[in-house]
């Protein structure tokens, strides 16, 4: 049991190292990002920024009327060919946020999706940490029950 506990603590400490490294953030910056919207995707499909960045997204449509709504930030803009859209926000919330088309643009409109990733993604690291913790706990539990 003692060894199992030592092992568990060691694994959790080891797991924490990459999380601490990955959680290092850069200084907030001003970022201007251009996104092209075309049935039924955004280019680039993923936008990556750091926590605290002031982000301006310029939306350009190359075919029909499109929109862009960001989950979690609840900001949106829209664009038509020749009539660009724009939105600005401060990326205070970290994690992955879905960018969705907010104007019905054709059959696949509900599936027109892009991602905004605000680093560091504590939510993802924390979830992986929990999953690994559940795994190790379950193994320790069945091993412990095995002993008389």
């Amino acid at each position: 049991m003692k060894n199992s506990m030592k092992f568990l603590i060691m694994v959790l400490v080891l797991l924490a190292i990459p999380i601490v490294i990955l959680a290092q953030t850069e200084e907030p910056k001003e970022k201007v990002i251009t996104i092209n919207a075309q049935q039924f995707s955004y280019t680039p499909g993923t936008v990556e920024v750091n926590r605290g960045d002031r982000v301006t997204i310029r939306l350009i449509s190359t075919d029909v009327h499109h929109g862009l709504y960001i989950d979690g930030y609840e900001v949106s803009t829209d664009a038509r060919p020749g009539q660009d859209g724009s939105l600005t926000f401060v990326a205070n919330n970290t994690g992955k946020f879905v960018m969705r088309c907010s104007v019905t643009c054709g059959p696949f409109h509900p599936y027109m999706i892009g991602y905004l990733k605000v680093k560091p993604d504590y939510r993802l690291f924390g979830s992986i940490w929990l999953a690994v913790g559940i795994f190790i706990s379950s193994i320790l539990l069945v091993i412990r029950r095995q002993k008389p």
Partner: protein
Amino acid sequence: MTEKILGLFPVDWRFELTSLPYVRKIIKSRWMPFLPIVLNLSVFTIILMAGFVGGVSAGNYNFGIMFVWIVWWLLLMMVMVPFFSRIWCMICPLPAFGEWLQRLGFMKVRNKLFGLNKKWPKSLKNMWLVNFLFLGTTYTTGFLTTRPIATFILLMSIIIGSIVLMVVFEKRNFCKYIGCPVGGFLGLYSNMAVTEIRAKNPQICKDHKHKDCVIGNEKGHACPWMIMPFDIGRNTYCGMCLECFKTCPYDNMAINLRPPATDLLVDKNRGLDEAWKAFIMLGIAIFFFLIMQGNMGFLKDWANAKTTEGYLTFVVLHSIFNLLLIPGVFFVFVYASHTFGSKEIPLKKLFTNFSYTLVPMGLIAWIAFSFGILFPNSSYVLHVISDPFAWGWDLFGTAHFPWTPFLTGVMPYFQIGTLLFGLVLSLDIGFKISKQTFQKRDEAVRGFIPIAAFLTVVTIFLIWLFTG
């Protein structure tokens, strides 16, 4: 000592819902399930009309698309299957025409059925056919979920197919083995349900030689699902038609509440057909996510058949991923379990038994996936109920309700919480299956570790895919 699910709920705990007099009265009435089927049929009539008049218009403003692929699908995965087993099969209106034709009536009991009443071949009495049928249906997901006319064609094909095949083959062979694309996973995932239909006292059934539930009587039909109601080990093939409640002269059938996933511990009638159903369902959840909630435009173009080459690439990759890749990766972990646990247990038995750990994982993955549909898209429903045929109606004053995503900011937490719960449940079921499969407990522990690792890796992958 009685096993407990999640260390909390004894596996053999039951509460008989039909012990409540008014519940039993309703269940025994011949109006059940006729009345819900008719009500459901009226909704499906609107769905079919909306699908037909909607043509190829954008699906998000079509009643048919919204009610089938948002309302029905979410209710099915998030409510009906986990809580009420195959209750959908009880109220499904699609095979109703075929069944009414077999019975030459709506509610009257007629045990000599109209039609050829052919037996379904014994070699096909499994899930293989519906596995391929469902996988084949998912090739068209890009059309089904976005073009109203495609949903119309699918539903009409099921209705017409059921009428024809139910005239040829006896009883509910159509639903069970032949023509229902969703019947297979409803059966497998209903093993997770917290409700079941079982005999109250098996000894009464054993002593009763006549078996009215199997052959029928003047009060009810012989079991349309061709199972032995007195010996239902698992929910898989019980369509909850309630005929056995009517036919049983001893009132010995019950609907019970029970802990979740208990059927997965029944070491009887497990098979590779159900194993592949579990792989296919998990794989489709991943592929559907990539198409519907992913950011890869080229994949959407493939599924949308923008080019023939792209569409064929999608079909091939989708098939390989579901039929070969997932089972292949799973096999590696099962092989490790075989090596660490005991080589005396046949590899096939290990593979089959442990594949049932993917049932909780798969259902939970679908629930997590469904949050991604529910929160962003359900506001469309308010629009379509007011103007179901896009004829400019405003029946409830919500026809102009704008698209309004809700709770999308916290949606990832719902998904992560659900997936982690799924991991806990899968690990719990996994170790119980391991103990059933290996002869000694230390072998079961060693053999369980690779499977637990696989389940954890899949969970982390799904968390990363959905939220990371």
